[in-house]
């Protein structure tokens, strides 16, 4: 488990909008009147009931997400009062936001760096101007520009995919070792590689048509 600064939410109470009684700030439903509550301001991991980690088990994440959507999705409130409908929409929106970030390794890494690195990195991850990363990105772009057959594109795609896998393994180690600077550098590299994959897809589509 990674050490993220979070307030201990169980001590925070807020009045339920419906019955006005005390309700834990992070509760989805009021314990007294069962009314759906506004989404709490918690990090994406807490929103899905997970510990902050880079090594997210995607199947487990899906299960948590589905379980929560089953309770909170606006479809469950189709015949309810307008206020409850509106709150369910806000809850489902917050949940989708968290799920989208956590299920994608790049977004997850980026999010985690910011979550963990607020004190460590003076300006988030943006300070990293790593020459070797920039060189690598330029080399790959040149290669892509030269590629004029599907086979050449396939080769670049395979190569990029392998590198992405390597970066992901390295990221896992970096986060586990609390090496935020290293994780930040790897995340930047992952951004370039991800962009590369997108451009390969683009070139492929262009070549096909």
């Amino acid at each position, binding site marked *: 488990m990674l050490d993220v600064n979070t307030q201990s939410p169980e*001590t925070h109470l807020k009045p339920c909008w419906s*019955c006005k009684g005390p309700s834990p700030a992070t509760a989805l439903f009021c314990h*007294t009147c069962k009314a759906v509550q506004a989404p709490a301001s918690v990090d994406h991991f807490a929103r899905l009931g997970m510990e902050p980690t880079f090594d997210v088990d995607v199947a487990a994440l899906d299960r948590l997400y589905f379980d929560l959507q089953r309770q909170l999705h*606006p479809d469950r409130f189709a015949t*309810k*009062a307008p206020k409850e409908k509106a709150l369910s*929409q806000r809850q489902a*929106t917050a949940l989708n936001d968290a*799920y989208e970030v956590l299920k994608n390794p790049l977004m997850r890494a980026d999010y985690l760096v910011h979550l963990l690195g607020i004190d460590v990195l003076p300006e988030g991850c943006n300070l990293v101007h790593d020459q070797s990363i920039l060189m690598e990105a330029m080399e790959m772009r040149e290669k892509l520009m030269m590629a004029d057959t599907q086979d050449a594109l396939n080769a670049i795609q395979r190569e990029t995919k392998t590198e992405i896998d390597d970066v992901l393994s390295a990221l896992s180690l970096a986060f586990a070792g609390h090496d935020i600077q290293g994780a930040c550098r790897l995340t930047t590299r992952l951004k370039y590689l991800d962009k590369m994959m997108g451009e390969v*897809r683009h070139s492929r589509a262009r070549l096909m048509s």
Partner: protein
Amino acid sequence: MAQLLQIHEPGESPVPHQDDAEMAVGIDLGTTNSVVAVSSEGQVEVLKDDDGQALVPSIVAYAPDGSAIVGELAKRLLLSRPDSVVSSIKRLMGRGAEDVKSLGGQMPFDIEPHHEGESQLVRLNIGGHALTPIEISADILRALKDRAEAHLGAKVEKAVITVPAYFDDAQRTATKDAARLAGLNVLRLVNEPTAAALAYGLDKSAEGLYAVFDLGGGTFDVSLLRMEKGVFQVLATGGDAALGGDDFDHAIANHFLEQRKAGLGETNLSAGEVKVALMTARMAKECLTTEDSGEWMLTAGDKQTKHALDRATFNDLIRADVKRTVKICHEVLTEAGFDPMDIKGVVLVGGSTRVPLVRETVSQYFGSEPLADIDPDQVVAVGAALQAEALTVGSDTLLLDVTPLSLGLETMGGLVEKVIPRNTPIPVAKAQEFTTFKDGQTAMAIHVVQGEREMVDQNRSLARFNLTGIPPMAAGAAHIRVTFQVDADGLLTVSAGEDTSGIEAKVEVKPSYGLSEEEMSTMLYDSMANAKGDMELRLLTEARVEAERAMLAVRAALQADCKLLTVGERETIGEQMDKLIDAIKGTDRDAINAAAEDLDKATRVFAEKRMDKGIRDALTGVAIDKLQSSVSDGENA
């Protein structure tokens, strides 16, 4: 109102939650045909007319007095009174006058000039009546509602209505507005492919990835769905809004006309004769679905020609179009990161999937025999009915959908900045920050667009508005935050504000081609004698639902914390609750709201006492927790 009151026996008051017991129907509002179905305990019935016809042609004829005739009867008037009969109105939903012109000769109606103060929505002159596509669609929906009410012997006011997955925001809003005009409360707009998958019960038994291949008359749509333990997750969707069975007709008609030219030399055909050629082509297409070959006669002018066509030639004629559908499937799959082998099954929707080459090509590409045992013309309505029941009665199935098209804003140089990319799970909210580019700039034009292209003018313009009241600052100093919110129906709301000054200049955006609230209420008033009553009834129902909820909340609070109250306080709350119960039994909306307000006031002290107690309890609880955790920490060390 008198008619509405007859539902209840004399002296009997409307029971609370009467809505819950009401039937909600599923409606497929199609371009060519519409279908209404109802589900009870998972058993779906597609509602038919006296002749046993399930399909209601989406055709409306207008009498001189403005009254509408919908369906088969209107279809029969199509040839004899073409200027007062309108078909395929779905193509114009959420469209402006410019779009209609670009549709060319397809709509043989005059467009009404745009008047000051009206929305930009197109108005057609049909038999002397100026009508919007929304009003025409509302007439179709009213006919479906009537059919359902006659069938069920009860009022039907709730519906799930399906829309094509590629429908943009303006088209979705127009559909919802049409339903409102027809007196239907839309529980949810569901995408047609999703409804089709629901109809096959894929939510219950299936696990894995499924594709829905929907080829209609004029449109093609493919969706990729993941089924897992009753969760129905739309992963990606794509298509072509101008590719369908009509293109097959055109291909055959061109082939016939080429043959004719070879035999008779160049002949000029009138628009009517081209129409006849298209109808003949359509017959040939339908025939070649089951037969290997056939012969058709084409009469134009005074010359009749005979045309033979076999399946192989037909396949050659349409091969390019069919290939395009597979190419789109491939793009959608690749973008979502899948191979055809990953797909467990394919659902076929739309009449054009009856064409053998389409079926062969689809099963070849996906490597499996497609699911097609539900009538492709009814499958969408069946799914809509199931979802309608799920939303009213409750269900374990969960449907998670995505945005079909990217939403963005115009930036410098006519470029689009995407705010919400397509295939993002909904509901969703995303904000984008912009800044001023001139010193002292106090206003900013915001242009909302939808589509995948890079340039603004290649995408669909949804709305334009001006954000005013920005305090004068140096260029680049203002932080203008534009927030896009898409609800579970896929409908967009945009708001904007300036952050640094704390000035909240919020604007809600309605699509340019939607109805303004005023136009909506005028139409409601014009179109129904009892519109006002219906509106009142809706507001009354809402007030009752809200009051019921408040009462349940107070009851729950009393049950939990009754002992915090003095006898006097308890009595006051009890009195106010009785008053509210009485008010709910009546029909005075203001009285209900006032009584609810009084109950709220009467429970304020109670609420404070409960909060105090809650905080005290929590502190004691935390103290114990801390004690326990320090004990266990000690054990670990």
